[in-house]
């Protein structure tokens, strides 16, 4: 059996005294798209930040590709973080050109010169923004901003792509485009994708598996069809039928 990409064992995350995440055991495999579902405050964003090493768990172990992140030094953690990319819920564009925004992650990885230019152009072309290189990134529309955020991630060619509500507040056309791009990233690079969404239809359209978080705990994790057609937990049944009162 192949080694899981991520393994979380007794992971607890607290802010001050408030526990926001408590995961007893969770394994995530490579080359899949996971939809992370749950109401606001369920711990979804915290989970992604822990996986991306933006934050450290209060207790417990997170293992990435067989390496315990608690025991890894700063250099090793940085090396592992550079195999991932996360698109944050509040997408932030650096106040420079679109080109520089996309180039930044590559420059951090030592990509320079013609190779840098080629990969930036390739990434912008991938998201359909080939002519946007010289535009000022903070002046883009919401949909364009999300596409540049995705281009920044695509350019890096990450093994793990973490997306925190990438289609929130976008119009239906932009949502459809982002979904198509996410699937294309996954299919063309084999990247594992974890996408947080409140849109259950979106989860069904793009994910292979769904993970439901509620009150900081994993309630159910199942293949996407089973999750929606034959949920095992009462909480999941209420959630997918829209009967959950938050």
């Amino acid at each position: 059996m192949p080694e899981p990409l991520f393994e979380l064992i007794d992971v607890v995350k607290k802010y001050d005294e408030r526990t926001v995440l408590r995961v007893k055991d969770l394994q995530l495999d490579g080359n899949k798209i996971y939809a992370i579902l749950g109401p606001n405050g369920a711990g979804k964003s915290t989970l992604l930040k822990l996986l991306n090493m933006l934050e450290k768990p209060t207790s417990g172990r997170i293992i990435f590709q067989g390496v315990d992140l608690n025991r890894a030094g700063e250099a090793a953690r940085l090396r592992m973080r550079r195999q991932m990319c996360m698109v944050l819920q509040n997408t932030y564009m650096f106040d420079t050109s679109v080109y520089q925004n996309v180039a930044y992650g590559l420059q951090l990885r030592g990509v320079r010169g013609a190779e840098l230019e080629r990969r930036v152009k390739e990434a912008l072309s991938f998201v359909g923004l080939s002519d946007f290189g010289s535009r000022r990134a903070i002046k883009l529309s919401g949909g364009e901003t999300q596409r540049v955020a995705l281009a920044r991630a695509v350019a890096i060619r990450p093994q793990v792509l973490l997306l925190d509500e990438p289609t929130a507040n976008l119009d239906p056309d932009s949502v459809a485009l982002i979904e198509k791009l996410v699937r294309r990233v996954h299919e063309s690079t084999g990247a594992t994708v974890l996408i947080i969404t409140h849109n259950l239809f979106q989860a069904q359209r793009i994910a292979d598996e769904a993970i439901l978080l509620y009150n900081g705990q994993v309630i159910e994790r199942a293949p996407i069809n089973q999750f929606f057609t034959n949920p095992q937990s009462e909480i999941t049944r209420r959630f997918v039928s829209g009967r959950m009162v938050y």
Partner: protein
Amino acid sequence: MVNTDLLSWLWQFFSQRGGELSGIVGLSLMVSGSAVIIGAVLGVPLGALLGLKKFPGRELLLRIIYTLMSLPPVLAGLVVYLIFARSGPLGFLDILFTPPVMVIAQVLLATPIITALSSAAIAAKEKLAMDTARTLGASERQAAWMVIKEARTGILAGIMTGFGRAFGEVGAVMLVGGNVRYQTRVLTTSIVLETRQGNYEFAIVLGLILLLLSFVVSSVLLKIDDSKLR
């Protein structure tokens, strides 16, 4: 229509006092420019530290800096005067009534402003810019540098405000510089002197030059800010 009286007055004025005027302008720029450079070298890193890090005593330090932002120039001048007066702790340096001590007085005035505005600009960008840089693979140091770059407009605004404070103040340089002709006389102290002597035209010309130079310096700094979009 060009006023020929005005032109002839200006011609006469510059031919008589042009040399002195250029010396005053040069000294003003040298003193305030040096003070702002030193203030930026001290204030921007301190502002970055305050904007990026949480540490014990941070709040107290911020309160002290905010208080010093409104330090009256004449009080700053008095403190520097007492330190560098012959009987003061650094009196042996014998630099009172020289440009270096004027620079020190203006550093006291400019640095808190540069520090506080840099800190606020960096803190405003800290969370999102830092996290975004880290998600793209930046180390802590690289992410901090990116936050500082993102806050550049605010930092430049702080430096410009600091320059304005130093360039336009009169109390401190008057006290520690003494307004000695050809030696420590700067634009603001000249304006005071010329006004007291009833030379209002000269005082107004000096005032206009002061405003023009502030405009030029601000324009240069804003140009630097614009150049970030490459």
